């Protein structure tokens, strides 16, 4: 009896020791993150060949897109199927701004970015009011609208129709010239920094007050409204935020490829991003980016046999039904699945 009490007491002591942990663990985590960041920025360009780097760059681009999809899914419970229209649209606008409006590269970049943000805000203002299922349908419809609009005969002179547009800029953007963006090793550095910053930004938003409100609205919107919270604005801000990440990814993609094709606005880009997010796990920022890399290398492996889309479909089903928390999801205690199924029980 006495013996047991001491065990219980010592067990009770353990959490106190653990509570002292974060003060020690946090610097360790930061150091580890810094090491990973520096190693990731430097190592691949030294050890990997151009081809692997190219695939990895595409992986990070998709990872950023997946990050935007995952953040909205995880924090707001909303699934967006229109990420491609932002991603491809930003690139297309950049190309148009340079070739048609004769802007300098930097001005074109800013113009494309601003137009996309305005578009995302207007669209978001219309559709974040709805519930998750309608939101999913509406983002799909809006995405298809943009990809149809690009192919319109009347806009062909602007958008290049099915041929797409070549992007060749003279001068430099942020001290980098066109050739630098096309160089896989240099672009890897750009992508690595961009993806890390995007991941960090969304991660900190998720931990902020805004993130807490978003999750509470996801759980029960009525209760939040009843408690005096504005449930509309936080979701709109989140929607615009993730589209900013998607637009940055789209602009980087065009800078790297030097070309924008109508396929980059197609539904398959959106579903690829969704799959990457589901594969990596939607909770947190590491999962989606990792998912993008996994997807990109898998696509490289199987794409030649024309199996990419088939595997995309299979991956959606398998990861939702069997591994709903993705590859990284096991590390995080926050299961999106549990919260969503919790919602179903209540409804």
């Amino acid at each position: 009896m006495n013996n047991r009490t001491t065990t219980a007491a010592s067990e009770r002591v353990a959490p106190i020791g653990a509570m002292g942990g974060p003060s020690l663990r946090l610097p360790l985590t930061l150091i580890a993150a810094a090491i990973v960041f520096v190693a990731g920025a430097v190592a691949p360009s030294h050890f990997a060949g151009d081809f692997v780097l190219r695939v990895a760059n595409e992986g990070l681009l998709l990872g950023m897109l997946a990050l935007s999809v995952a953040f909205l899914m995880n924090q707001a419970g909303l699934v967006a199927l229109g990420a491609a229209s932002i991603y491809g649209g930003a690139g297309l606008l950049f190309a148009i701004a340079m070739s048609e409006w004769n802007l300098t590269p930097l001005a074109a970049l800013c113009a494309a970015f601003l137009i996309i943000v305005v578009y995302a805000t207007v669209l978001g203002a219309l559709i974040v009011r709805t519930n998750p299922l309608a939101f999913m349908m509406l983002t799909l419809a809006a995405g298809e609208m943009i990809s149809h609009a690009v192919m319109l005969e009347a806009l062909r002179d602007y958008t290049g129709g099915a041929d797409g547009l070549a992007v060749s800029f003279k001068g430099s953007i942020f001290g980098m010239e066109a050739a630098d963006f096309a160089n896989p090793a240099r672009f890897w550095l750009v992508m690595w920094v961009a993806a890390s910053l995007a991941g960090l930004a969304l991660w900190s938003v998720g931990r902020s007050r805004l993130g807490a409100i978003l999750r509470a609205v996801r759980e029960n919107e009525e209760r939040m409204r009843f408690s005096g919270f504005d449930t509309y604005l936080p979701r709109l801000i989140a929607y615009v935020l993730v589209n900013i990440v998607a637009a940055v990814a789209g602009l980087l993609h065009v800078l790297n490829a030097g070309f924008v094709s109508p396929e980059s606005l197609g539904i398959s880009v959106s579903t690829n991003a969704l799959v990457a997010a589901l594969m990596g796990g939607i909770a947190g920022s590491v999962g989606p980016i990792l998912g993008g890399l996994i997807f990109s290398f898998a696509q490289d492996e199987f794409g030649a046999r024309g199996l990419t889309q088939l595997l995309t479909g299979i991956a959606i089903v398998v990861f939702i039904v069997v591994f709903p928390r993705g590859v990284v999801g096991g590390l995080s205690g926050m299961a999106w699945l549990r919260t969503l199924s919790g919602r179903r029980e209540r409804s």
Partner: protein
Amino acid sequence: MIALLIANSLALASLLIMLASGLALIYGLRDVINFGHGAIYMLGAYLGYTVSLVGGFWLALVVVPILLALLGIAFEYLALRPLQGRSHIEVALVTLGLGIIVGQIIIFFYGGVARSVDAPQILSGSVTVLNLSYPVYRIFLIVMGLGSCVLLALWLRFTSSGLYVRAVSQDPSVARMMGINADRLSLLVTSLSTAFAGVAGVLAGPYMSIDPGMDVTMIVNCLIIVVIGGTGSIGGAIVAALLFGMMQVAGSVFLPNIAALVPYILLMVVLLIAPRGIGRGRVLN
């Protein structure tokens, strides 16, 4: 001119009605938006193409819906029932994934080129009514579309299973409390819905060309119709499909440059004015 316009929009609406009402039926019973419905329609079209080559159009019109009804039964047992406890969004995503798989299998077997199906002898050619010449096949399409629509309405209105379907669609929990077996009903409705998609696919063959992108186009159009019609409301879906067909056809005549965008504009307008749609369907959740 106006008469032709109306006839053409009716022909398009006939196809849309068959698909959108199938979507609305499953949604009403299971609360699931079947994002794979477009792929099932495409499967119907390609199977119709093959069966037509072997045994003719009429055989296809009978065999394909039966095959797809069997597929619907498999879909119910293998996907909808095991996932009953999952959230609606997850099930919707699974149907999206299944739709992609079906679409890719079709492309694997048939390749990426567009195909066309000839209308049977008796339906080819055109008739002249009031000095207007009109293709017989489109008239057949309208008759089939409106006919199935009437049959559906009669079934829902006058049979006991139809009554149960309406009851579950209106209030699932109360209906279950009253002893309605929603699972058995759902089996019926899912297979009916996929069979309808099969009929629509076979009928689409001679009307428009069959191509690998038809699934996405059709599912997006149907989602727009279901939203405009008020989700879960079958009557609303029918009205919305007619309206949609009219807008699409009129758009391609009067505004050929932006005809492709008309449905989306319509969607946005309806969402702004009446977010619950024409049929005031159950609020989506």
